[in-house]
């Protein structure tokens, strides 16, 4: 059980680095699909076999929403906005990867004092999940393209979700479903807003949305 858990977390973390390193939006969206697959698989590895039916159901739903529907929404928004890649990120790609390495180290250090009470299956789980959350945050603050930021939000949710996945066995299904539903609607509404922004402004660079200030 532990080996597979570790492998899927490793996939999650490596995917984070790809997200930090690439400028192509299509690649970013592909990588979120990869993360969704890793997430839904690793939920299963945490439980003992035979897997509870509810868990299999939750894993499948996660895969469908995060691995198929949301990427589809993002791709559609990308087409409608006519944007292929991030032009000038606020923090460059190599610098992003370097910062990512530091964040990964920090994620491990942070959990040393909290480890005592962890019931999670793998020592990498919490640092990996935190690192994914931080990667998402990085993408939101260091990129200008609105769609990359939406993808960043998705990655951040993946990280938070990984924290929850460790508890999925005990936590009630209703909440997990609610969370998924909210994320879905969030990306949907963000997609619509991006579309409206691109129609109104002819671009989706959020740093140029700067009229409102004090």
């Amino acid at each position, binding site marked *: 059980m532990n080996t597979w858990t570790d492998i899927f977390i490793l996939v999650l973390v490596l995917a984070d680095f790809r997200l930090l390193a690439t400028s192509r939006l299509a690649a970013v969206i592909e990588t979120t699909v990869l993360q969704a697959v890793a997430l839904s698989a690793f939920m299963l590895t945490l439980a003992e076999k035979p897997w509870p039916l509810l868990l299999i159901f939750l894993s499948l739903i996660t895969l469908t929403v995060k691995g198929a529907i949301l990427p589809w929404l993002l791709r559609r928004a990308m087409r409608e906005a006519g944007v292929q890649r991030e032009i000038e990120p606020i923090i460059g790609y190599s610098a992003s990867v370097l910062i990512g390495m530091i964040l990964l180290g920090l994620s491990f250090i942070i959990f040393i004092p909290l480890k005592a009470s962890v019931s999670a299956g793998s020592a990498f789980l919490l640092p990996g999940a935190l690192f994914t959350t931080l990667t998402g945050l990085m993408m939101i603050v260091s990129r200008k393209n609105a769609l990359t930021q939406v993808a960043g939000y998705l990655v951040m949710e993946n990280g938070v979700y990984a*924290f929850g996945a460790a*508890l999925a066995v005990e936590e009630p299904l209703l909440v997990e479903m*609610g969370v998924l539903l909210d994320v879905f609607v*969030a990306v949907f509404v963000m997609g619509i807003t991006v579309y*409206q922004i691109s129609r109104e402004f002819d671009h989706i660079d959020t740093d140029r949305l700067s009229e409102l200030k004090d």
Partner: protein
Amino acid sequence: MLINIVLIPALLGLIALVIPWKKIRRGLLITGGITHAIIIACLAVYPKSPVASGAWIGLDSAGLLFLSITSILFLAVSVYTTGYLGREGDRKVLDSVEGFLFRNEPEAIFIACLLFFLASMSLVCISHDMGLLWVAVEATTLASAPLISFHRHHRSLEATWKYLLICSVGIALALLGNYFLAYAGHGKIHLRFDDLISGATSLDHAWLKASFLMLLVGYGTKMGLAPMHTWLPDAHSEAPSMVSALLSGALLNCAFLGIFRAHCVLTAAGLGRFSGELLVFFGMLSMAVAAAFLIRQTDYKRMLAYSSIEHMGILSLGVGIGGLAGTGAMLHAVNHSLAKGMLFLVSSHLLFIYGTKKAGDVRHALKKTPLTGVLWLVGFLAITGAPPFGLFLSEITILKGILDSGRWAVAVGYLLILAIIFIAMARIVLPMAFGLPERETSSAPPVKDYREPVWLAGPAIALAAAVLAMGLYIPAFVWKFIGQAAFIAGGN
């Protein structure tokens, strides 16, 4: 029974989305507001037994208090909205700031989202589970985003984008806080309030502290606590006024309820001091930031937005101190919502008449449009805590609570900031009401009917009367009720 306050507005919203008849759709909005208010009144008069164990939803005093605020405000807003849409819905209108034509969002979407917004806020108030509460708070963000972009132009889109992204990211952190809370219970305690509070002593303290930090930052973003408040002035100034009123008077309170629940859990676990100090710190910081931005403010809608940040700071401060200040904070939440709702409604009429959000261009409002001018002044006095309005009473109660707990430095800072804000807002508002009229411009002035329509004046006067009444006399049962709400977190 209880879940109806969520289901009925949601259902009406769905109907509003599909039917093609304008009149009926507006009727649905009012129906939603009235039905909601009636159900709340029934719930308040015939209190049910406390929450059944194992239930997802339930109504306790704090929930009922915030629910009542939401309901009253929504009722006022729904009356206003029907009139407003009659004037501006589904047609090309002139942007009052830059003077270009644009088309508003389809009315069906707007009304549906208003009703969904009401449903999700009600769900926040009755959630009895931290997970469900999170789902509901995120739902409020999503339901209100289309409301902010009602005016489909570049400024409102910018505001919507900031709101959507900043709040979603903030709320994602709150979800992290929820999971930390589950870790604190070693994955064995469910996130229901009862279970959390009864099992609080067995929670792991390190995780619990981490969890509270995340929840505070997450819900604090939504609530508009500094320094996570940056979306708030933009959203409040660009949204139509009744949406600003709902955001300010109802939504911010709902987000606060999330923090309040977490604070209750920490208090039960014996960490009340830790969470209380954090609340005091963020409360003072928010008040100070609001004061700083109010001093040089030129836009009167942004002024109201910063004033909301100030009052959220006061709430946070009061609950953080606890005791009498906690009770005062609950009372303050009611007063602030009533006063701020009224101010936003009145500001919409100022915007309509003068066609500008610049406070410097609004002059002589008392003469030009007497009722609006008077209400604007009344609102200003109420919101800055001048007697005899409700906010005076609640701010004094909080002050007494701070003094009782022996926090002299906090008390001095609190009074100082309140004084600064009073002066800063007076400098903006008084010239708007009294200032000399502009010299008549040579071109023919636009002919406008300056009188307030009933749909505007009615709700605004009702809210003003309510906030005045809250300052003159608070019935004993209301006191008892507010005391109960604060009691959970160690108020008295």
